[in-house]
Structures are given as C-alpha cells and as structure tokens.
C-alpha cells in the first residue's frame, strides 16, 4: 500500500482523523512550548495564588505557588509524548519478538519463556517500576525505561496467543511444506496476520504509557518537581480539591484527551490495516 493511499484511507475514518488532529495538537504544543506558553513555568505570581481561570492574565488560573497552569500544561505535553514514544518502542519491539518466538515454537521454549513472563506479570507494575527506580535513581529516562519494560510481558502474552491461533492453520503448514524456514514463515506468513493485533495493543499501550507516567508522578515517584508533568500537577492538586478544583480538572482533561487521541488513531489504523475488516 502506497503512503498516499494509506493516508487517504486513514483520514476517511472520522475517528482516525480526530485522533490524528489531537496528536498533532499535542505535537505542536510539545515542539513549540516556549512560543505557546504565556509564562515561565517556574515563575511564581504571588499576587495571584489560586487564581481562577482568566484571573490576572492566567488562562487556566494558577496553582498554590501562583504558577501559571496553562504554561505548565503546555510544557507537560513534552514529558507525556517522550514517555509514550520511548516506552512503547521498548515494550512493543521486545514483547513482539518474545511472543512470536514462544507462540511459534511452542513446547519447552514456550514453557520457559512464558513462565518468566508470568513471573514478571506477577508484579504490580507500579511496584516493578518503583523497584527499578530504587536501583537506577528517579528521573524521566528511568521512568520511560521502567514503563517500557513493564509492558513487555503482557505484550508478549497477547502476541503469543495471536500466533498460536495461526500456528495450526493450513497456510502455515503449506508454507512449511514448501520448504519455508521457521524465520521465513514467521516473517512472511504469521507476522502480517498478527500486525493488527500488535497495532491495537500498541495503541492501547501508548495511552497506557501516558497514564503510567502520570501515575508514577502522582505518587511522587516519577518526574521530580519543579519540572511540570501532568501527573505531578495532579499530585499537587489533590490537596486543594475544594479550594482550587481547576488545578485538578485541567491536567486530568489533558491526560484524558491525549490518551483518547492515541486510542482513536489506533482504531483508525486498525480499520485500514486489517484487510478483512475493509471489505
């Protein structure tokens, strides 16, 4: 499928178009943060602490230090995008490789791999992420690494069960009988069939990565202050739910909308990439 054709099909789906638009907006916010932000993120306006939206020239109001919420949200998009890209890259690549190997070869290989994955899946992701932070030290890079690694087991499990449903199909047997090697059959006969599964799962995981970063930061274990991230903003907001609900509402909506964007795009991609759905 040529690129132009692919995009025309993708944009024909309203969901995908909306998703793509949301992601473009976030991308613009992240790339041009210094131009879009109205204030410096760490500037404290002591005359306007807990300002309501619109007060004192603050579009979304200010937080408990009088910092501009809009500007902090704009810069926060950088953290969310970075975490999503790096974490999903790690998780989907390694998870697919492991899942394909386990599902295709079966037997002892499958048993050993899946027991290790089960063991990793037996840890709540928050805890595994924390344990890694304890060893590596806190920070953006370690958060991305931890979130990516935590994705691997569930990714490989889903890919494995997809591979297993094709492993006993006739076209796979046929390809093997024609002399196709294991790698050939995996690359050209099995992988194309499970790509929709990988994509729908990667799209869920991109949104999941954004939420995971927010979660770690919310618990005080991810991005450290004063760097603005949507999760750390919510963490500060939880003490002022009655006084300043705008502190909680805006970062939450930012997370919700960006995750929705990636999920919508994932759905659209699925419709385009799954040939059986197209008919």
């Amino acid at each position, binding site marked *: 499928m040529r690129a132009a054709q692919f995009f025309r099909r993708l944009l024909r789906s309203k*969901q995908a178009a909306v998703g793509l638009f949301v992601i473009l907006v976030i991308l613009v916010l992240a790339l041009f943060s210094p131009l879009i932000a109205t204030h410096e993120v760490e500037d404290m306006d002591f005359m306007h602490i807990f300002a309501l939206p619109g007060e004192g020239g603050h579009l979304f109001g200010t937080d408990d230090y009088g910092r501009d919420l809009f500007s902090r949200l704009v810069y926060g998009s950088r953290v969310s995008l970075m975490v999503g890209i790096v974490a999903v890259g790690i998780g989907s690549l390694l998870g697919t490789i492991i899942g394909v190997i386990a599902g295709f070869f079966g037997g002892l290989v499958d*048993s*050993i791999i899946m*027991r*290790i994955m*089960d*063991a*990793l*899946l*037996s*840890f*709540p*992701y*928050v*805890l595994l992420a*924390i*344990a890694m932070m*304890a*060893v590596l030290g806190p920070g953006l890079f370690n958060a991305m690494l931890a979130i990516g690694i935590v994705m691997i087991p*569930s990714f490989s*499990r*889903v890919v494995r*069960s997809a591979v*297993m449903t094709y492993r*006993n199909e006739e076209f796979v047997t046929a390809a093997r009988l024609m002399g196709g090697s294991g790698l050939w059959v995996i690359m050209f006969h099995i992988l194309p069939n499970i790509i929709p599964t990988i994509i*729908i799962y990667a799209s*869920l995981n991109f*949104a999941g990565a954004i*939420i995971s970063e*927010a*979660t770690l930061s*919310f*618990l*005080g*274990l991810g991005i450290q202050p004063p760097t603005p991230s949507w*999760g750390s903003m*919510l963490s500060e907001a*939880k003490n002022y*739910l*009655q006084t300043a*609900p705008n502190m*909680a509402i805006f*970062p*939450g909506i930012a*997370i*919700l*909308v960006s*995750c*929705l964007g990636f*999920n*919508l795009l994932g*759905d659209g991609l*699925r419709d385009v990439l799954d040939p*059986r*759905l197209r008919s």
Partner: protein
Amino acid sequence: MRKFIVRRLLQIVPTLFFVLLTVFFLMKLIPGDPAAVLLGPGARAQDIERFRAELGLDQPVFTQFALYLKRVFTGNFGKSLIYKQDVISLILERLPTTLLLSVSALFIASIIGIPAGILAATKHDSFVDFSITILSLVGISVPIFWFGMILIIVFALQLGWLPAVGIGSISNGLWDVIKHIILPSTALGIQSMGIITRFTRSSMLEVLRQDYVRTAMAKGLKNRLVLYNHALRNALVPIVTVIGLQLGTLLAGAVLTETVFALPGLGKLMIDAILRRDFLLVQGEVLVIAFIYILVNFIVDTLYAFLNPKIRVAYGGSQ
C-alpha cells in the same frame, strides 16, 4: 482436561521459583548493609549482628537463598519497621479490603463491558456502535486517580449520595459495605471496562465474519442461537484472557484507588512502606500479591483451554 490441569499446576512451580528469585535479587540490590537497612536507622549494633547471622549474609549466596526460601515457606516474613508487627499478620489484616475492591471492580467492568461489546458488534457501524466505541475509549483514557477525585467531588461532596472515604463495617449491615465500595470500585474498574468492551466487540466482529456463522444463519437458525451458541463461545476465548490479565492490573490499580479513597488495604500499606523504606513489609507484600496473581493466571488458563477445544487438543489434553 484433567491432564491439562495437572500439567498447568506443575508449571506453577518454576513460575513461583522465578518470582522468589526475582524478589531475592531485588532485595540484594538495595544499597548499603542489608541487615542495617532492613532493621532501620534506630537498630542497635548487636541486633544488626544477630539479624545478619539469621539472614546468613556471611554465607555463600546459595545458602542465603536457601535460608530465604525456608523463611518464606514457614511464613516468616519478618517484622515491619513502621508497625512493629509481623509482616504476615499486617498483610492478612489488609488483604480482604484489596481483594474485595479488585473483585468488585472486575465484576462491574465485566458485567457492563461484555454486553456492551456484544451490542456494539451486533449493531456494527450504527449510532449505538459508535457511541459505545467512543465511551469505551473514554473509559480507557481516564486516569483512575483523577476519575476517583471527580467521583468524590460529584457523588460525595456535591450530591451527597455516597460516602467519600473509608470501607464501612459489616456490623452495620451489608449495605454499609456496598455503599462504601461503589465509588472506589467504579473508579478502579473504569479502564478495565473500556478494555473488555473493546476486546469483546472486536472479538465478536471477527467471529461473526466466519463461514460457520454464515452457515448457521443460512441453515435458518435463530439469530439469538447463532449469536450465543456459535459466535460468543468462540469469541469468549480471547476475552477470558483479557479479563484475567485485568485482575493483575486491578490489584496494582488498587494502590491508587486506596490512596484517593483512604481505604485500609494492601495498596496503601505498600505506598507507606515504600516511602518509609520498610523493605521487609514491601517484600512480604510483593510475594503475597504475586502468589495471588499466579493462582488467578492458572484459573484463567484452565478456563481458556476449557473454552477452546482446538487448544485443548493441541496441548495433549483429552476431550
């Protein structure tokens, strides 16, 4: 089927072993003198010395691992620094709350998610399908802790219908407990609900396109019969896997929900333990949650095989 279950039970042994090994090495990664760190900053020198001998820190690593296994299997997880109590009794005290929360969340998620997914698939490309798809995406995209805050603001603070915090007491009747668990389990279950709806819908769509469904329709069987006997039974296979995976996520998500709703469960205990560096308590909690999750995984796999004869046969089980 019995063969499959026995085989799967035997597979649990290496999984357990890996979990124990991972936790053992995680504890070794803590910087500093382990005995001193585990006993906390207030410990006396002779206590540290005795504890070091008990852990076998002067012994080779294999002996240390053996001693650790012995402690775990006798239920001796040590004493908590914060609470000055046996770790195991602390955990057993808090476990029911977390289990109740996670299972209620999974229940709410499944009971709404599966029918919603089936409805969307049978009304493919209609307004109903579109609405359900968008709503399930919103569910997946909501941060649990934020949704919890919003639920508290709306249903507890503004409308005053349900309590904002606490778990209630069974001595005040069952309704008291249900009343307290509705908001937290809804907050916790919202993402799983979206995921289950999505997977049910795509799994059903996949199956409804199959030839045998068309054949069944062509034979003149009633729609409802084809839907439940032919389509749903096959579509359920991946759905069960996804639901099973959700329970682990929910146990982890309980950490957040318990923090927002001030519930006395494992999650809150864990965060306190981590922030105050109570490593023995953390270790005990990790092991207990891992054990529960392995058990759930086993049940999910057995159901998976039970629902899909293809896999049952491929893995040498009898019909």
